């Protein structure tokens, strides 16, 4: 016989849980399952809230056409392509891909948020806005020199699609600093 204890819960929550449980089976079994999952989340080092908050991440990344690939493979493919077909074509490809994502997200903050959430190899991406000027800093300890440059083209393409023109940029291995100005609509 399993030993049982009583948990004090907020009335509104207890009622809601009771209502959900009635559709699934017994209250005891449902509460048991909920508590087991809370402990499982705890063992993964996160709270249930974070698990639920991050849930949309997977679906939205998939919808946006991102594929997870080991960093090493992706960087090596990029370096090889650069040697074989030249940097210019890749720069264009990354720029155009950035343009697509700029149009897809259609909002600067949403785009920056997506980059922060999906590109785990980006250590930091900061955005600051001052009137018409937008400054973007992207740091990664993993990017190669070539990959940093291509990633800057990606960011430039996205911001261009969001109607920000590049004014200044400083790109070196793992560091991208860019300054944009809001394009004046004709």
């Amino acid at each position, binding site marked *: 016989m399993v030993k049982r204890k009583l948990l*004090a819960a907020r009335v509104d*929550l207890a009622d809601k849980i009771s209502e959900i449980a009635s559709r699934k089976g017994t*209250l005891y079994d449902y509460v*048991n399952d909920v508590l087991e*999952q809370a*402990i499982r989340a705890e063992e993964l080092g996160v709270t*249930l809230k974070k698990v639920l908050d991050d849930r949309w991440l997977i679906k939205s990344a998939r919808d946006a056409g991102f594929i997870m690939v*080991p960093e090493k493979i992706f960087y090596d493919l990029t370096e090889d392509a650069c040697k074989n077909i030249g940097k210019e074509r890749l720069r264009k490809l990354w720029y155009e*891909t950035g343009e697509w994502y700029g149009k897809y997200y259609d909002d600067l903050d949403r785009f920056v948020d997506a980059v922060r959430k*999906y590109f785990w190899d980006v250590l930091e991406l900061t955005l600051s806005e001052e009137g018409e000027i937008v400054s973007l800093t992207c740091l990664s300890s993993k990017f190669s020199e070539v990959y940093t440059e291509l990633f800057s083209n990606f960011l430039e393409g996205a911001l261009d699609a969001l109607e920000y023109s590049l004014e200044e940029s400083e790109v070196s291995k793992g560091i991208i600093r860019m300054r944009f100005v809001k394009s004046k609509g004709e």
Partner: protein
Amino acid sequence: MMSRDDSREKKLIRAPADLVAKLNEAANREGKTFYSYVSEVLEQAVRAYEMGRSLKEIIDVYEILEVHRDAGTTAAPRDVLDYLIKTAYGKNSENLEKLWYQSGRWYGVYFKERFKDSVDGFVRLLRDGRLGIDQVIMKNDDGMIELRCVSAFLSQERTLLMGNFIEGAMHSLGYKTKEREFFRGIIRLTFYSEHSSSSKQS
């Protein structure tokens, strides 16, 4: 099962004592009162229900997200990835297939170490969609596993590479390839376990 507490704002819910003890420890670790910790847990259970999912399903998905993080993956825009693969594949298909196979081997070892049911964990990884596969059907018959993966957006080259990735993982999980069939967007692989009776028959 549910009884009224003295306070009009609380109700008592019966739960297994061992789980209550573990939750109590968790609440202490987070510096929260047991009552507020339990409230948060129940709030999230209601939230999950309102999303049309169970907490288990949502944590299963999160667990796989953590696998991608641990594996050191990054997000690659699909068009860029396909272009890079197409460019490299013609000249160096063997090396690329080996790279994907080795990456699969790593995942296989990881699942073996971290998951109780490692094959189930790996299939969940394939199903979560982040590797670009839309549909995964698995048949498991006495140690013989058939995996059928389908995606309309999988290029010919990526189909072959994903096939190698899956083989690498399954080999690390203790399976050998029996049959393999790749067609653009469709991967069909059959594996057998060295320890199963069906492998003894074949």
